């Protein structure tokens, strides 16, 4: 397979609820500067900017890409903003990779950012997230994201026979991973009793099964493989991207517990990369809710016996297929536009052996997967990365 774009720079700010007077523009700048420094490139070598931000309701800023371009000292470059619900960040990575692949720019900055925690009350954000669903059908009911995910995971659990215990297991595992991630929003060591006593939001989902609303940013510098600075030769590269959509109405799907769009996206990415899901040795998957991680593992073809693999520790940091080393959305947090960019940055850093001590796999995997979706997997986007990818 050939490298679509080399990841010469990758950085994340911490994800949390900012109360320090900083704004999303500060976080975007911090992430970009760190990624640019890692790349070894000069600012004027960046030819395009892709910004991921889910909603102007959060930022109170239309056309944020141009504003951020100015803040980053990139005025004059081509700038665009990508939005695809929860998948915004990963779709921005895809857009950046396409810009490199088509030769429109040799080096592209991808910046994901959202102030999902600090600018609006949580109840308002919950209402806005309800607008992620068809306002002429599912959205009319006043349904919430949690309620729709709850209905979907009930179907998944019923079909697979996996018990609700698995929701607790994912929650505990991801938040435990977050304890070794200094940039994580919710580093916690939960017990099952603590989870069981947290409020029921939409059965079977209790509050602790849900990812938090977070602030933060992440950035990548994507480079044409033939233009990678000498010091960054051997950096990880993007070798496959795939995206797909599913029926907007949950009830119109043949199996509402199956993330069919994710399967399609993964197949498309694997076809480009010329690998199979079994080649993936590290994965950051979209766990907006604990059960969504299980549904993702199934849809991505990463496990045929999810419950048994979970119990056996296959997805643990020391397991054969570490999943959500970062803590995922549940532990690291979820500033929506930054999520997919941050997942890809995490994979790139881990493939280079530069991820956080205590989480960095001792044996570097060859391939890693970053998986993101929007809605109840209404829009899916996955990216495959290869370690030390050469052009």
């Amino acid at each position, binding site marked *: 397979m050939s490298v679509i774009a080399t990841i010469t720079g990758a950085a994340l700010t911490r994800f949390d609820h900012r109360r320090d007077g900083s704004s999303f523009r500060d976080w975007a700048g911090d992430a970009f500067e760190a990624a640019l420094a890692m790349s070894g490139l000069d600012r004027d070598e960046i030819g395009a900017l892709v910004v991921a931000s889910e909603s102007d309701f959060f930022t109170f800023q239309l056309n944020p890409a141009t504003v951020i371009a100015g803040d980053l000292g990139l005025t004059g470059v081509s700038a665009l903003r990508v939005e695809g619900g929860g998948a915004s960040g990963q779709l921005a990575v895809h857009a950046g990779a396409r810009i490199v692949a088509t030769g429109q720019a040799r080096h592209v900055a991808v910046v994901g950012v959202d102030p999902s925690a600090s600018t609006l009350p949580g109840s308002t954000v919950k209402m806005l997230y309800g607008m992620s669903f068809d306002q002429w059908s599912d959205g009319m009911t006043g349904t919430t994201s949690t*309620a*729709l995910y709850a209905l979907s995971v009930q179907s998944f659990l019923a079909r697979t026979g996996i018990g609700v215990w698995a929701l607790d297991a994912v929650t505990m595992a991801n938040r435990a991973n977050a304890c070794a991630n200094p940039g994580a929003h919710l580093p916690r060591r939960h017990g099952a009793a603590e989870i069981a006593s947290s409020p029921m939001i939409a059965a079977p989902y209790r509050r602790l099964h849900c990812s938090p609303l977070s602030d933060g940013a992440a950035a990548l510098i994507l480079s044409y493989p033939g233009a990678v600075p000498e010091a960054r030769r051997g950096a990880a590269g993007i070798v496959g991207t795939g995206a797909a959509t599913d029926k907007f109405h949950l009830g119109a799907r043949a199996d509402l517990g199956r993330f069919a769009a994710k399967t399609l996206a993964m197949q498309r990415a694997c076809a480009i990369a010329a690998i199979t899901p079994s080649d993936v040795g590290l994965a950051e998957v979209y766990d907006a809710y604990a059960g969504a991680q299980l549904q993702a593992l199934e849809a991505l073809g990463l496990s045929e016996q999810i419950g048994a693999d979970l119990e056996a520790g296959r997805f643990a940091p020391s397991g054969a297929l570490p999943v959500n080393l970062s803590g995922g959305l549940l532990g690291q947090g979820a500033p929506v536009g930054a999520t997919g960019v941050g997942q890809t940055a995490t994979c790139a850093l881990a493939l280079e052996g530069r991820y956080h001590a205590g989480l960095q796999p001792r044996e570097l995997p060859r391939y890693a997967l970053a998986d993101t979706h929007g809605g109840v997997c209404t829009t899916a986007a996955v990216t495959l990365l290869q370690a030390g990818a050469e052009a």
Partner: protein
Amino acid sequence: MIRREVSLSYELAPGWLAPHVDGLLQGRAVARGCGTCGRVSFPPERHCGCAAPAPHWITLEGWAEVVFRTDGLDGSFALVSFAGSSTKSVVRLVLDSATGRFGTLVAPTDGQPALLLALNGKGASDDTH
């Protein structure tokens, strides 16, 4: 901090979904039917998948069976199967404490269209449908 407040009032046109939306306001389940493949969708799908040129509107009986239900602080919602529909629907249960597997679509009391289901308290064994 910089404080900004916005109050937005939208006027959303129902567009091609007008028969469906009008039906909801009256407590009627108006679905989309395909004369070619026979698929009936509720909520309506503009394209059924077989690319038939002229889907038509069908009024369903309006009763539905609960397939999955979720309750909690967010309210009570269910995925239900309306009689006569090929697709399932997400509805809000109007009486959170009501039980039973079957219910009927009801008109909203606030004049705003919504998929609302009133459970009739009957289970599978005692339901007449």
